[in-house]
């Protein structure tokens, strides 16, 4: 169609030629600014190098985390001073990261009209072992203590921000057999003792037990969230308790740290709790702020988690005692995805 911008009787202050000149000048100026900024932004040292430096490996004891300034994995001593100045960078670029038992799981987002996530499995020296591509935005990553079982969750993104619903998809990978469960939603689920069928079940935030078969996860259906205990070997799952999200099993396998919805205020709905699996007693932790993260145990007495950062940082890693005492303490300024790697005694049993 020919666009003829001829005015019948306009009351413009500028003539047609002047308007064209102003428009052309504005287009040149604005396009130039955009191009200039994009060029500048593209050349920023953003750590987009995907692979880890050769010198960077999984050796403990250390706290590994994602450095929010570079987007790459870094580590620091477990007992680092407040703020953690002694950090060592140079790990792989990941959006979510977890490591245990000499295996690391790195979730990397690939933006696009169809957003994708690469779930990259790395060995002790952070060399790539395998890679799976899944649609969605990465949100949770977890490796079992042995390093053999991996689980990750992605958000299936909607098309625009006016869509209020969201959905998650959780996959489990068994490194011993190479078997990949693409979606945990197929597992037979029992709610309150009754076999449950509903199309709207969503799983997220898996945490494995030491036997590499039992696991804990969140299941949400019909507006409720449950703590679910599942078993990979007999392929079943049952709900244990309501209002539990993102469980994280303690190293001694007796307790689960989780976030509980305590408020309808959308700005601060969640608080960290620890559930004793023998007594089913809940303990509120000393962290009173809103935590939207899957906690990670640094030892049997401490959990680490990310919070929105101070001073313009995207997020900081905090730790708090797991028994409800003490006070939260900032461990990493500008970090997320904390994962503690224990002493180097087990460094010989490479997978």
């Amino acid at each position, binding site marked *: 169609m020919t666009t003829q*911008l001829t005015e019948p009787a306009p009351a413009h202050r500028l003539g047609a030629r002047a308007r064209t000149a102003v428009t052309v000048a*504005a287009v040149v100026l604005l396009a130039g600014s955009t191009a200039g900024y*994009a060029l500048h932004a593209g050349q920023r040292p953003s750590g*987009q190098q995907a692979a880890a430096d050769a010198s960077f490996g999984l050796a403990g004891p250390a706290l590994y985390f994602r450095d929010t300034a570079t987007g790459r994995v870094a580590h620091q001593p477990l007992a680092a001073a407040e703020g953690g100045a002694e950090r060592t960078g140079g790990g792989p670029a990941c959006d979510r990261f977890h490591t245990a038992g000499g295996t690391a799981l790195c979730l990397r987002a690939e*933006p696009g009209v169809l957003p994708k996530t690469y779930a990259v499995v790395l060995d002790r020296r952070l060399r790539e072992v395998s890679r799976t591509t899944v649609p969605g935005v990465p949100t949770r990553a977890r490796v079992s203590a042995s390093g053999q079982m991996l689980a990750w969750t992605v958000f299936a993104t909607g*098309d625009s921000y006016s869509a209020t*619903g969201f959905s998650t998809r959780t996959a489990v990978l068994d490194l011993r057999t190479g078997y990949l469960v693409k979606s945990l939603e197929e597992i037979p689920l029992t709610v309150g003792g009754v076999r449950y069928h509903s199309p709207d079940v969503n799983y997220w935030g898996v945490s494995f037990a030491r036997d590499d078969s039992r696991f804990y996860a969140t299941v949400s259906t019909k507006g409720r969230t449950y703590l679910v205990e599942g078993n990979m070997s007999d392929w079943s799952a049952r709900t244990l308790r309501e209002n539990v999200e993102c469980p994280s099993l303690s190293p001694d396998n007796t307790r689960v740290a989780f976030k509980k919805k305590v408020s309808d205020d959308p700005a601060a709905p969640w608080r960290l709790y620890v559930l004793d699996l023998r007594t089913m007693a809940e303990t509120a932790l000393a962290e009173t702020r809103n935590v939207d993260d899957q906690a990670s145990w640094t030892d049997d007495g401490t959990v680490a988690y990310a919070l929105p950062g101070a001073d*313009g940082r995207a997020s900081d890693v905090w730790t708090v005692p797991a028994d409800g005492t003490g006070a939260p303490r900032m461990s990493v300024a500008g970090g997320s995805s904390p994962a503690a790697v224990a002493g180097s005694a087990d460094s010989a049993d490479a997978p």
Partner: protein
Amino acid sequence: MYLATTGRRAAPASPPTTGAGRRVPAAVLALGTVSLVTDVSSEMVSAVLPLYLVLGLGLSPLQFGFLDGLMGGAGAVVRLLGGHLADRGHRYKHVAGIGYAVSACSRLGLLLAGGATGGIAAALAADRVGKGIRTAPRDALITLSSPPEELGRSFGVHRAMDTTGALLGPLAAFALLWATAGAYDAVFVASFCAGLLGVLLLVLYVPGHHRPAARPGPAPARAKAFAALRDPAFRRILWAAALLGGATIGDAFVYLLLQRRLGLDPGWFPLLPLGAAAGYLLLAVPVGRIADRVGRRRPFLYGHLALLGAYLVLLAPAGGPAPLLLAAVLALLGVFYAATDGVLMALAGPVLPAGGRAGGLAVLQTGQALARMLAAAGFGAAWTVWGPRPALWGATALLLAALAGCRALLPRDPGAPVVPGAPGAPGAPAAPGPSGARAVEFAESPTSARSTS
């Protein structure tokens, strides 16, 4: 395009009163260009926002969705305010320009907010406020800039250009993210620049004066906030839009049902709305022209019939190749939007007095939006309690009832070209007079309807 002027000459509608009648009015093209550029700007941000919020800021989508819902409610109020302000002193262009400028500057807010969640929320709220302010004055400008007998086509052209921008925006955003290795701030800067260009185009090319003083009479007196509600013809349109809106389950649910029905890979899910938008883009102009011929009442009703068809296809017993089902539902959704979105404005525009047009359109859009919000919430609840299929059967029955009601409720043809050359002559088209009825009969003859294709 292929819609040559020969088709128009065959039209039995009243002859164009001005020489420009055969062409899409320049002001409409200018407004369409502004919307195109602005939609590129806003959809760029929308497309990268989930990634930015979840990865960059660690915001939970659930949390964000809740905030977003609250902002939607605030947007409705702002829209009414924008419409009212625009009518006072005929400041359509000014008020629309302020709306466009607020939205453009909200990208700067996103950039400056850095990681602060509060700042992000404020910037998104500003974007919503800007969108709320500008919509009604912009649609009023379209109705005031085109002859009433060509309103359908004008809205069709505008909405097609608008949708083109919406389709281009995400492509531009991801091209930029790819080129800059994931610099979200570059997307925000580009979006800000595009937004500024939109404002500039509005200032330069959209005429600002719409004969406010040409017609002495009741115009200033009518410029009250809800003056339009006193008009019985407008009230019927409003009720009809709200009634049908209340039986609309919302696109997200249609796509979700479609995905479940076909077992579609979730990776393809974001492409479904693009399919419907492409249908809308292709059909907006032809359907607008048909609406000008046959009156806007029937396309509006038939558009909802297409939505009903989409529900029925989703409910149909299993069988048939999946691509066919997919194409059918997306095409029906495209028809639904093409036949209802701009057409509703074209239906209501001529009924409203020139001095209360933006306010009236704002009331109409807000009423429809609120009804749709309630419908989506209700459908979500029904889905939870009964499951998807019974809920969809319920929605189908509701839509059928609403359609029957609206068929009776809608004025025979308030948007028909009744009085030539009187865009918004106060009170003139309020009651379809004998001339209007004749025009409708004439236009509804099958030969003229067929001559469109």
